[in-house]
Structures are given as structure tokens and as C-alpha cells.
């Protein structure tokens, strides 16, 4: 091997190691500059200083890398082992070890956006913590006395909530806590608005809070995907309904909220009862109330009837009253019968009267007969020998009377037939 060593060197220059590494670093930095490197994160270690140390590797090689604290803080997502990333940085040398080191300034996840990844990471973390547990979800009040609203004072979401709630239950006041709903720092305003609404004095307290925002890009919705807002919702003492974005947008706020509504309008509908339904319910209640009251009165009346009957069985006064009632009924029945009888009697009388009429002596007299009385004795003369010459007689004709005197009497060949049987004393 010594054959290959130069026998003579023009001049020996001996470097310190530091000088060597400084030279290498200068070469690297000069010739390569800032560059993008793709690889998988491994051996990630977070130093107490806040700097992140890790390796970037692929199938055949790896390189040490560092992400300083200031840069790490700006990242929306977190680095983790196994993550495929594209890192922007400079090649350098770590003198203490003589290692090649990538000074990373910025990292992007490969195959998806940083915000998407941040969302997934936060979601997974909070889920592990149990913040999305169904057991944490509180029921909404059926009839809130006052509803809090966290949203922009100028958004379409506010108009939607006002319109829907006004249609459903205008009697319930709506209290707006206006905030920005997008841009840096908006998440802190949202969290503060939630806290303010939750800490109102007793008479003004809200018993449900809507956190809403219209649709937008993932960047626009970012405040609702932050841990700050998630914690504020989870820690809110009154139930929270979220209605962020459109139907397809799912935010961290949605996951933590007690109820997730797909849109601001639906959130309003969830918090405010529908008065059309309540009108029906009240009307049905009133009908039930009246029906039940009627039945109570009917039952009471029936009981009263039973009781007075029972009373009549034991109390003489009542018994007399009952008797009288019975008598009155009898009397009425009697009267009815009597009238019927009288009717029959009258028609019978009429028939009898007709027959009597045919038997009337006047009718006989009218046919030419006469009745003769002794004017002195007033006895009816039936036989000639009852009279003597000189007797005065009265003769009753069909019409009128005669006064007559007997001249003589004659014995009859045959006795006169009695044509009438009138009472002797008549």
C-alpha cells in the first residue's frame, strides 16, 4: 500500500478536523445551496430546546436532519416517524460528530396537504383523548330560553340562523357573540366568544350555543380545525351545536360539538323548537284537557245519582220524595188512561144517546100517539074504566097539550096495548 503514497510532496498541509469539516461545509453550502429532499421521517427526537432531530431515509440511504424550534412552530402538522415528507433545507456538517446534516427549514407531507395532515393528526390525537366520545355529548335543551351564536356579524351564516330561528320560535332571544371566522388568530376569537357566552350572569345565560360558519376552503375553515377551538367547545359548560361549512365539510369543531349540524341553517333548526309542531301539541293537549274534564264531570254526576238513590233507601224524607215522584208518574199514567177511557166512554155515550133518541116518548108521540093523565090524580090513564064521566083529563100530544072532560066510558073489546113504560111517578 505504501507504493501508492507519494514519495515526495511539494508541501505538507495538515488540517485540523474542524478545518476539514469547515471546508467540506463550505463546499456543500456553496455547491448545493437550498434544496428539496424527499424521504421518510425516522428516529424522530424532540430535544428539550424544542429543536427536532430526525433522519430522512429511503430504500437505500439516509441522512441526519434537524428542524429548529422556530421553524417547527410554524408547521400546522407534527412530524412523526414513518411520515413521507418533502423537506426544504441546506446540506451542512455537524462538526462534533462529523456527520452530514440537513438543516431543514420547511417540511411538507407527501401526497396530501399540510392542513389535511394537520387535521388528521389533531383528530387522531383528540380522539385518543376521548374528546369525541358519544358519552361526552350532552342533550340540547328542548326549549332553550336564550340561544348563543358564535359567528361573523357579516356572514351569510348569521342571516341563515336569524331566518330559520325566526320562523321556528321567534319568542326565544338570540344572542350573537361576533368573531372573525377565518384568518390567523380567528380561533382565539372563537374560543373567547364561547367563554364570554358561557359566563353570562344568571338572568342572561344562554342554554345552548351555535358555532357556525358558511362554506369555504380548508384554509378558510382552518380556525375550526384547531385545538384551541376544540378545547373551547369541549370545555363549554352549555351544549354546543356546530354548523361549519357545507354538508361535506367535517371539522374538528364538528367532532367535539355536542351536536354536529351540516350547515348553519340546520344548526338553528336543531336548537330552536318548531312552533308549528308545538301549536299542534298544545291544541291536542287542550282537547285532551277538555275531554278529561268532561269525563270527570260525567263520572261525578253518575256518582251523585248513585248516591241519591242509596240515600233514598235509608232516608224517609227522600223516600217520600221518591214516592211522590212515583205517584206523579202514576198520575200521569192514570191521566193518560183516563183520557183514553173518557174518549171511549164518549163514543159509547153517543151510540147510547142515538138509541135513546129512538126510544124517546116524544118520538112516539110525534108518530100520532098521545098520553093521557087524570088531571086531578095526575095518574096516567091506561084503562077506560079508570075514568068516570065528568073526569077532567090532560092529553099530551106530539106537540102541545089538551085539557079535556070525559063524557062517557066504554069497556074495550081488547085491552089497550101498553106502548110506553114510563115511571109511574112521572
Amino acid at each position, binding site marked *: 500500500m505504501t507504493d501508492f503514497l507519494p514519495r515526495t510532496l511539494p508541501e505538507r498541509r495538515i488540517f485540523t478536523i474542524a478545518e476539514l469539516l469547515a471546508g467540506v461545509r463550505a463546499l456543500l453550502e456553496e455547491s448545493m445551496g437550498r434544496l428539496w429532499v424527499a424521504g421518510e421521517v425516522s428516529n424522530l427526537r424532540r430535544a428539550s430546546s424544542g429543536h427536532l432531530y430526525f433522519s430522512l431515509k429511503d430504500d437505500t440511504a439516509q441522512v441526519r436532519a434537524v428542524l429548529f424550534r422556530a421553524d417547527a412552530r410554524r408547521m400546522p402538522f407534527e412530524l412523526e416517524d414513518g411520515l413521507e415528507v418533502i423537506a426544504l433545507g441546506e446540506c451542512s456538517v455537524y462538526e462534533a460528530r462529523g456527520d452530514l446534516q440537513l438543516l431543514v427549514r420547511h417540511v411538507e407531507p407527501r401526497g396530501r396537504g399540510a392542513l389535511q395532515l394537520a387535521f388528521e393528526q389533531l383528530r387522531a390525537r383528540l380522539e385518543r383523548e376521548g374528546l369525541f366520545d358519544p358519552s361526552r355529548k350532552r342533550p340540547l*335543551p328542548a326549549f332553550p330560553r336564550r340561544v348563543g351564536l358564535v359567528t361573523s356579524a357579516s356572514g351569510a351564516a348569521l342571516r341563515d340562523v*336569524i331566518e330559520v330561528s325566526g320562523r321556528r320560535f*321567534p319568542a326565544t332571544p338570540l344572542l350573537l357573540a361576533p368573531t372573525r371566522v377565518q384568518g390567523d388568530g380567528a380561533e382565539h376569537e372563537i374560543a373567547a366568544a364561547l367563554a364570554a357566552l358561557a359566563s353570562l350572569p344568571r338572568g342572561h345565560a344562554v342554554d345552548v350555543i351555535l358555532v357556525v360558519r358558511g362554506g369555504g376552503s380548508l384554509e378558510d375553515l382552518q380556525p375550526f380545525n384547531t385545538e384551541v377551538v376544540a378545547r373551547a367547545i369541549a370545555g363549554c359548560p352549555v351544549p354546543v351545536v356546530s354548523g361549519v361549512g357545507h354538508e361535506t365539510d367535517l371539522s374538528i369543531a364538528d367532532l367535539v360539538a355536542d351536536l354536529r349540524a351540516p350547515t348553519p341553517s340546520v344548526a338553528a333548526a336543531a336548537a330552536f323548537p318548531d312552533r308549528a309542531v308545538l301549536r299542534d301539541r298544545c291544541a291536542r293537549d287542550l282537547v285532551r284537557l277538555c275531554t278529561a274534564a268532561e269525563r270527570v264531570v260525567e263520572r261525578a254526576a253518575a256518582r251523585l245519582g248513585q248516591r241519591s238513590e242509596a240515600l233514598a233507601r235509608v232516608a224517609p224524607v227522600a223516600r217520600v220524595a221518591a214516592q211522590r215522584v212515583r205517584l206523579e208518574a202514576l198520575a200521569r199514567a192514570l191521566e193518560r188512561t183516563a183520557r183514553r177511557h173518557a174518549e171511549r166512554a164518549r163514543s159509547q155515550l153517543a151510540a147510547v144517546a142515538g138509541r135513546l133518541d129512538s126510544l124517546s116518548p116524544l118520538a112516539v108521540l110525534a108518530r100520532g100517539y098521545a098520553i093521557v093523565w087524570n088531571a086531578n090524580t095526575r095518574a096516567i090513564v091506561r084503562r077506560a074504566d079508570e075514568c068516570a064521566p065528568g073526569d077532567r083529563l090532560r092529553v099530551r100530544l106530539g106537540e102541545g097539550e089538551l085539557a079535556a072532560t070525559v063524557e062517557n066510558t066504554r069497556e074495550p073489546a081488547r085491552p089497550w096495548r101498553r106502548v110506553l113504560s114510563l115511571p109511574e111517578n112521572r
Partner: protein
Amino acid sequence: MDEGSPSAKIPPAPTDELPFETALTRLEGIVQALEKGDLELEAALAAFEQGVALSRHCAAQLEVAERRIEVLVREGAGFVARPFAGPEDTD
């Protein structure tokens, strides 16, 4: 009415301050008590009158037309609710 009778549980007459939910709950409690039919006649009639009043109270609240929208404004260290003029035009 004596204590322990079902009618003793019927709450006092409603006032304007009575929240809708309380009024509706009371109304439906009265309806159920009447439907059960174990109230004395006098108590039942009193409950009925109260039920009618509660029903009217509920109906009145349902027909409230005026909207109350307020906005939370910072005042000193805390917040106060002020009437809200309406959404701003800009979005």
C-alpha cells in the same frame, strides 16, 4: 284540599314569566292527572282551569311575532348584550 291528595301536586297558577317549557310540562302533567281520573271533582275543576290558563300561556308564547336579537359587546372587563341592528352588508 288536604295534603297528599293528587291535587296538592298541581303547581300554582302561571305568570307571564313562566318559561314555555315549564308551562307545557305543567299543562301535560295536568292533562295526565285528569285523564287518570283520581282527582276529586273540585280539585279536578281547579286543575282544569289551570290547564286552560297554561294552554293559553303556551299559545301566546308561540304567537310572539317580535324577534329579540342581541349582540354581545365588550364593556369594561365584561360583556353586555345590546340590541342587534342586523347583519352587516359586507361578507
